[in-house]
């Protein structure tokens, strides 16, 4: 699995290629916190290439969302497939996140 970081204007987009799970979640955390440290405030996590997320992955997103918000920034989640969307709904986490249908939507909103 891997996380690919790209920049679109002011926003940092992290693409989750593969799984976001207990075994790699710290990598995502380090990547986003380093960007936050550098001054980036607009974040999008793009799930277009994601297979699955476990509860640890959900947990790391909750933690990051809090840190970004505290720094005055904004975290959006983009391109969740039906299964991932269901997971956010079952856990009621969709209330915590801004969820966008596509990366384009997340970047233009």
């Amino acid at each position: 699995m891997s996380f690919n970081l790209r920049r679109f204007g002011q926003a940092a987009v992290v693409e989750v290629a593969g799984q976001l799970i207990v075994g790699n979640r710290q990598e995502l955390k380090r990547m986003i916190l380093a960007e936050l440290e550098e001054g980036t405030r607009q974040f999008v996590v793009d799930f277009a290439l994601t297979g699955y997320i476990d509860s640890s992955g959900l947990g790391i997103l909750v933690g990051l969302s809090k840190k970004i918000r505290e720094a005055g920034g904004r975290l959006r989640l983009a391109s969740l497939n039906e299964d991932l969307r269901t997971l956010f709904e079952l856990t009621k986490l969709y209330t915590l996140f801004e969820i966008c249908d596509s990366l384009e939507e997340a970047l233009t909103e």
Partner: protein
Amino acid sequence: MSPADRLVPGAAGAETLVFELPNDIASIEGAVDHAVEHCVPAGLDRRRLLFNFRVGLTEAISNAMLYGSSGGSDTRVRVELTAVPGEVRVRVSDQGGGFDPEAVPDPRLPENLTLPDGRGVFVMRALMDEVRFNRRGNAVTLVLREPPGDGPTYRRLPKPVAETLEDFDTQPGLDVRAWEVVAGERVPVHGSGGGGSRTSVGHSFTVPLGTDRELEVEVAGDGPGSALAGILRASLERAGSLAREVDRSRNALAAALEANRTIREDIARERLTREMELAHDLQMKLLPPIPRVPGVEAAARVMPATSVGGDFYQVIQLSGGRVGVMIGDVSGHGFPAALIMALVMSAAAIYAEEGAAPAAVLEYVDRAIGDELESTEMYLSLCYCVLSPGTAEIAYSNAGHPHAFVVEAGGGARRLFATDPPMGIGAAPYGQSVADWRPGEDILLLFTDGLSDTLAHTGRNSGEDLVLQTVSARHRSRADEILDELFELCRRATPSIPSDDRTAVVLRTL
């Protein structure tokens, strides 16, 4: 199947796959994919298998590792998996003291919603059809089932209709003809159904063969024939109903085979996309073109491997007409190796372009990636040479790169010995050395293990000797022609895609 697996025969012909995992969260993803491949006989919906099952099993294993271990790193998590048609059942157990799953608070409550942890058991229950903990709380059994009603049918294969008909043909005094009727079309399938004269038709009847086709049967005969016709009809009706089962089973089997294929493909594709293609693209994109430096003729090439290695080279134009040549080989494969390679190349290029001496460039690279090497436990060989057209010296630093040579016009070759151990094993300060260089005559030849290892299998000489001989024999050829020859030798040695990258750089000055 991995060597540590055991297959244990169980009830109803099902086998239970048993394996154990070290207490290492990095092993979970591979273990889960391994388990999925064993689930194929269940014939479950592919999406549920790839999402619900993988997430559920990931939760169970990570729970066992994070909360179930008794502390020591040698504790292991045990996975037992049984797949029967329509159902997958997996038990995950650890050696810990267990926990009370009922005591876990509902993560959906507003006060728990922003907590980073505590969703594992909930997610398992939401995605699996059944979740059962043992009394002690250190083992959990997860079940995923085919939704009732449209599960595949697996029965003993029936005796086909055609065989029933043939059996009765051997009966004296009985003439059996049959037609299959599909969508109103009547096709002869048995006997001379197409025509011919017949004295009398004693019996005729229809037997359903499936939802959209039936069998029409005519029996001619007298005497004992009429009694046999009754038996034939009963036999065909039984065969017909069994044939319908066969069809259903065949469809289910085809679906299971298709599921098997697509699941394996999906898993393989996921791995390919994220490990190899990414790493490989990155590697290829990073390798810069050879700059045109006046008085310098250079060529370089990588033949990439199936699993991406971390070979790289760069030829850098320096001030004062000088040229820097670098080759490196990162231990390990895949994305981490490509990442190290990317970091080394960008750090080296920045400092080299400022005109730093070879030892200083290596020190700078070490500073830039030392932490990354330490945390990933990787290391790399790195050799950097600086030459100026017209001068009789080559300055170089060599951190453990085994194949760096000056090949002379007369056929001899001088090795540029390592000045230091590989980077990641050794540390700054780095040494630097000088070698004699005859402009217009000598060839600088740098290559990686992948090249010499391939050729090692082709003859009595070592692979390295063979590379050197090839370059010597082609000493007057253009740099790119020398590489053509080397890589053609490799191609002939192993026509398949290699398991390690093969890289070579050839350079001469005027």
